[in-house]
């Protein structure tokens, strides 16, 4: 079981309030991703749950019992750190066995669990190596191994993939998702990468300056962002925002339209502009269209093999039902 409830949790460093009172419930077995720009307090929030930082106010409950004052080791949570935090002088086997050894398990029991974990994570051939002799992805797996042998109530991941190269990151993303499907244990995952959030999460928590901007499934956030911040943060490339007369025509202070919801044509359309930079990805092409008089540049997605070049005149037509409207404060107009 791993149901984590945050009740008016507050964190202050001296005078600075990093996290204003915050309520959040993480259900048992859920994969929750905290996402937000750097400095938004997502890592602090994770460390509060882990018990590595003391809360300044409020209560943290794990499976209904108050864990606010419980030391980290007793909370039954396991954490994977950004730097992996492997113990460099111990072999992989000893690294994974460390929490079991601290818990006072017998040697035979330790061996059994370590080998089972190594099997799951494809680490068996490396058990007697030192962390220094492993690649980044293997180190990451050792860190995960050290977490799973404890059979925790919940896993906490602190930007675990940010030290890996792009290809490995995609692979590890899948592995972690698969691990979650198999273990069905609660996972709390912190990242600044909205792609990781979208692909892995059951539930995304978007944070800004310590405040929860929106909580919901990836598609909920994509379809109905509650404000301009969430709208701009979720989705790649980011949403185009248009203010002024065009927005006023829709009865809003600003309207937002995603690049994939704009049709491109060389002959006719609602807005006229010129092709600026174009990014050819093979499957898609992203055009930065300038000179529309609406915004500095509007990003549009077109098919992979569209024959448009720098300086060509194009017409853009937004899909009417995909336009998001926001008021002066940035809140969504339903």
């Amino acid at each position, binding site marked *: 079981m791993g149901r984590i409830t945050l009740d008016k949790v507050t964190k202050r460093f001296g005078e600075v309030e990093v996290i204003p009172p915050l309520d959040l419930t993480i259900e048992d077995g859920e994969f929750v991703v905290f996402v937000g720009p750097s400095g938004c307090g997502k890592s602090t929030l994770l460390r509060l749950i882990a018990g590595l930082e003391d809360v300044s106010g409020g209560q943290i409950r794990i499976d209904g019992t108050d864990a606010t004052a419980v030391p*980290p*080791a007793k909370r039954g949570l396991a*954490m994977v750190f950004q730097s992996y*935090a492997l113990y460099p002088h111990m072999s992989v086997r000893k690294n994974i066995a460390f929490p079991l050894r*601290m818990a006072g398990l017998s040697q035979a029991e330790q061996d059994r669990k370590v080998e089972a974990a190594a099997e799951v994570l494809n680490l068996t051939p490396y058990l007697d190596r030192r962390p220094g002799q492993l690649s980044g992805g293997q180190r990451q797996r050792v860190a995960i191994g*050290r977490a799973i042998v404890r059979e925790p109530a919940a896993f906490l991941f602190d930007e675990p993939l940010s030290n890996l190269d792009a290809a490995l990151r995609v692979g590890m993303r899948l592995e972690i998702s698969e691990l979650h499907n198999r273990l069905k244990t609660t996972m709390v995952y912190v990242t600044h990468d909205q792609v990781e959030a979208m692909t892995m999460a059951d539930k995304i928590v978007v944070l800004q300056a310590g405040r929860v901007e929106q909580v919901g499934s990836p598609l909920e956030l994509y379809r109905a962002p509650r404000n301009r911040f969430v709208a701009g943060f979720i989705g790649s490339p980011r949403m185009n925002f248009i203010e002024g007369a065009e927005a006023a025509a829709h009865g809003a202070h600003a309207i937002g339209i995603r690049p994939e919801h704009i049709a491109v044509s060389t002959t006719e359309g609602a807005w006229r502009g010129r092709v600026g930079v174009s990014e050819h990805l093979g499957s898609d092409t992203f055009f930065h269209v300038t000179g529309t008089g609406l915004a500095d540049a509007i990003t549009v997605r077109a098919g992979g093999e569209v024959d448009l070049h720098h300086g060509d005149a194009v017409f853009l037509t937004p899909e009417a039902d995909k336009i998001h409207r926001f008021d002066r404060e940035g809140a969504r107009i339903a």
Partner: protein
Amino acid sequence: MATKASRSAARLMISPAVILLLGWMIVPLAMTLYFSFLRYNLLMPGMEEWTGLTNYRFFLTDPAFFDAIWNTLLLVGGVLLITVTGGILLALLLDQPIWGQGVVRILVIAPFFVMPTVSALVWKNMFMNPVNGIFAHIAKALGLQPYDFLSQAPLASIIWIVSWQWLPFATLILLTALQSLDSEQLEAAEMDGAPPLKRFWFIVLPHLARAITVVILIQTIFLLSVFAEILVTTNGGPGTASTNLTYLIYVQSLLQFDVGGGSAGGVVAIVLANIVAIFLMRMIGKNLDA
């Protein structure tokens, strides 16, 4: 150093330094070796003659020689034990965030800047003196008999004085090592259920292993040749109670005017130092491999 030309240029460039250092070492070594086979007494100038191994036989059968060896080992071992243990504890304390950290750290390093003769004299006259020393005053204030450290426990007193000088060095090296420990490792260990003492034993101490090795190696080199502290405090006495090998060689060649015997002692000291070095490298040198 990619090309052949740059490599030979590099050799040419460093050769003056290498030749100078080599000469600096070879010339005195060769002269010591040469003197050790001579009957060379300062009281009988111009009477030097070849005596073969006689000097070695006299030096190695001198009962003072075995005392000196034993004292040297005790001195090196005792100081290492005190400075490494004390250094780790002090480094752990200094690593805590405290008010006035910068000043405290400078104060801790200060003893290292005091020259050995001065610090030994300060300890001898202001602390350990049985009449005027501060320890004697404290003892008298408590109604106890003052303890004459330098004649009752001469070697222990010298070990203490030398430890006081070297403790800052050990502390400094260990403190920098401690500061390079990734705090996430400690947090991970905390999450893994390791209480503070186990975190120290399983994470901090192994992390410090290499720094401890460096401290032991460097200090051993200097501690084998402790001299000034003995000269200004006990003069090696009472008897040979605080005579180490270096001091014995000094006594032989400059107090007994027997340069030949002293040189033989010097060669013996070189051999012994190398044996110690080999043992040290064997025991802890593997810590230095990356």
